[in-house]
């Protein structure tokens, strides 16, 4: 496994946990891994980007523009914002949810149209309404793990290894709920 992955979304969406699961997966597989996180002021509803690099030996903790193999986006406009990182034809797993930024809330701008088209033309797109799936599971906070499930399936991952990584990273009393969320994402990836 060698992969440069960008995980993006809005502060508070559970991006750090998703990146931690990826890191755990790589570590369990005996690979070198670096995960670069964002903490602090940007987390207060701002855009958040995490870099995950997995290889035999990883140097820079940051992925260069145009070099990411894949992207997991928790929000559709954030996926487009991070497109400069993606290599041509890279995998994009996107939650189709729209979270209005300040200019839209203020009525000063419209939430942009055509974002999914932009993603479609940039790479291999898997778009899913993870928020809807999370609601059906009665687990509104599980959007992150659902997206990981979909990403894992699309990348042809070993399900058991993923489930082990998820279990190791979530709080003990939420393991069962998170494994269900992962499997729901895994199922959603074939549609």
């Amino acid at each position: 496994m060698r992969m440069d992955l960008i995980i993006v979304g809005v502060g508070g969406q559970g991006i750090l946990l998703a990146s931690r699961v990826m890191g755990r997966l790589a570590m369990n597989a005996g690979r070198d891994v670096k995960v670069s996180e964002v903490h602090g002021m940007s987390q207060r509803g701002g855009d958040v980007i995490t870099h995950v690099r997995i290889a035999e030996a990883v140097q820079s903790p940051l992925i260069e523009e145009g070099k990411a193999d894949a992207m997991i986006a928790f929000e559709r406009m954030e996926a487009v914002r991070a497109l400069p990182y993606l290599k041509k034809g890279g995998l994009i797993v996107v939650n189709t949810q729209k979270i209005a930024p300040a200019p839209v809330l203020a009525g000063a701008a419209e939430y942009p149209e055509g974002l999914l088209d932009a993603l479609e033309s940039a790479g291999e797109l898997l778009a899913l309404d993870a928020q809807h799936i999370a609601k059906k599971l009665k687990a509104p906070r599980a959007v992150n793990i659902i997206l990981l499930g979909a990403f894992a399936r699309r990348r042809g991952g070993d399900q058991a290894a993923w489930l082990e990584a998820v279990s190791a990273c979530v709080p003990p009393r939420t393991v069962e709920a998170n494994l269900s969320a992962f499997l729901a994402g895994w199922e959603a990836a074939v549609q």
Partner: protein
Amino acid sequence: MEKALLLGDEAIARGAWEAGCRVVSSYPGTPSTEVTEAIAAYKEINAEWAPNEKVSLEVAFGAAMAGARAMACMKHVGLNVAADPLFTAAYTGVRAGLVVVVADDPAMFSSQNEQDSRYYARSAHVPILEPSDSQECKDFTALAFALSEQYDTPVLVRLTTRIAHARSLVTLGERLDRPVPAWEKEPQKYVMMPGNARRRHPIVEQREKKLAEDASEMEINRIEMRDTTLGVVCASVCYPYVREAAPDASVFKLGMTYPLPETALRAFAAKVERLIVIEELEPFMEDSLKAMGLPAAGKAETGLQGELGVRKVRRALFGGETRLIAAPPQVLPRPPALCPGCPHRAVFNILRKQKLNVFGDIGCYTLGATPPLNAMDATLCMGASIGMAFGAEKAQGKAFSRKSVAVIGDSTFLHSGVTALIDAVYNSGTITVLILDNRITGMTGHQENPASGRDIYGSPAPMLDLAALCQACGVKHVRTADPYDQKALDAAVGEEVSREAVSVIVVKWPCILLEKEHPAPYHVEGCKACGVCMRLGCPAIGSGADRTVQINPNTCVGCGLCASVCPFGCMKLLERGEHA
């Protein structure tokens, strides 16, 4: 050997634990906070949040002087506050290892400036180590304790955001327990009055010379000879950038960036055709190399601002493409904002309504400066709001304070605002101070402080009474207020601002992120599109093309601020479980 995927900060904590560190005192500050949070999980270490960085370093120094390995952690601007004890601790030296962890923030992800802490090492005459990944964070911390004892000096360990907040694999080791020796009196070494300090200063100079000589033999200063047409000198996160951008170049990888290993650097420079220094922020190493007469370059290409990366390093080394790829044009900015239900918003609503001049401070509430609130005129550094307000009164006259306030959080007030309040009372000021008391240090991720009633372990602790403290400082007009009783807060601010005396309003409401249970969300009925609620800048309220507003039931926490400002009473509480 067991491995773990640790943040640089967590690896520092692990390194301190393995090195037998017993005492850690810190003040939170991004990106250093997680060191001390991780330390609190090690039961062999006595950890604490101090009211500020100066106190934290003094506590750590006291422990080290009394024979226990000790550490203080802070962000770059925190070292300004702790500079006073640092400079003289460099004279006294230590009995057990004393390590000061300082985390710089190139690109200012969560900071008010981009200062480069390495200059503190040079001007205080203490060594500074710079790890380049989490494994080195652990190893260098242990080494820092050893060097501290070997050379009888405090040792700085410098991180940057990309080291502190990046996870990488770390091989874990065991703890070396070190007994604390009996207390020994040694006033000639530890009482720094002129006579003793004059005897210590030459020792500082000799120690630094010895360190500089020994540096060329230290394993953490490593030469990787490859192609000799290019030789790069680097440290910290720049090392992996350089290795990736120029895998064939010869590299001098520094683990200790002050004092520099001059002998080894001269030998390296002699072997390479072109000598480039890659470093973020200031030309700290490059200037030193130039002072040695070596033909170093690099800063002209890398610049003084922001962080570097593989692409920028490649460009600096080999030229070529200069423009970074921009995000597609249709993407809108997403600036951070106060959370839905944040009690600070309720305060800024009143300050803006009364058109006051607002001297702000460091914390989440600095976001009160952003649109549409636009309710802040100045933010300088921790605790500065009160001093700035008093200084402005001196410049503009007392009438100016009849339309001005200082706004400061509970943790920031205790950090360094209280001394400015004492100044204003003592010197006949008439300012009004609002202490936004949410009982926690919010922006850095909810660390306890002396007003929280809990310590770093979450155990009950004496809860400092902010109102009583202000009274003890001599403030005659101190009152408390509920931010969500907007009428009463409006009246209280009006009265206190007009009063020609120092006054304090303690505005009490807990950080909304700490509240697990929320009232049901509000919804809108019969909106008249007046736009009044939109001026609150609440992320749960959005306006459509026709200017009528909706409330997002998923993010609204039912604080009711919008209901209290709506002139037409359109905001209705949803019954629990009901859907709009």
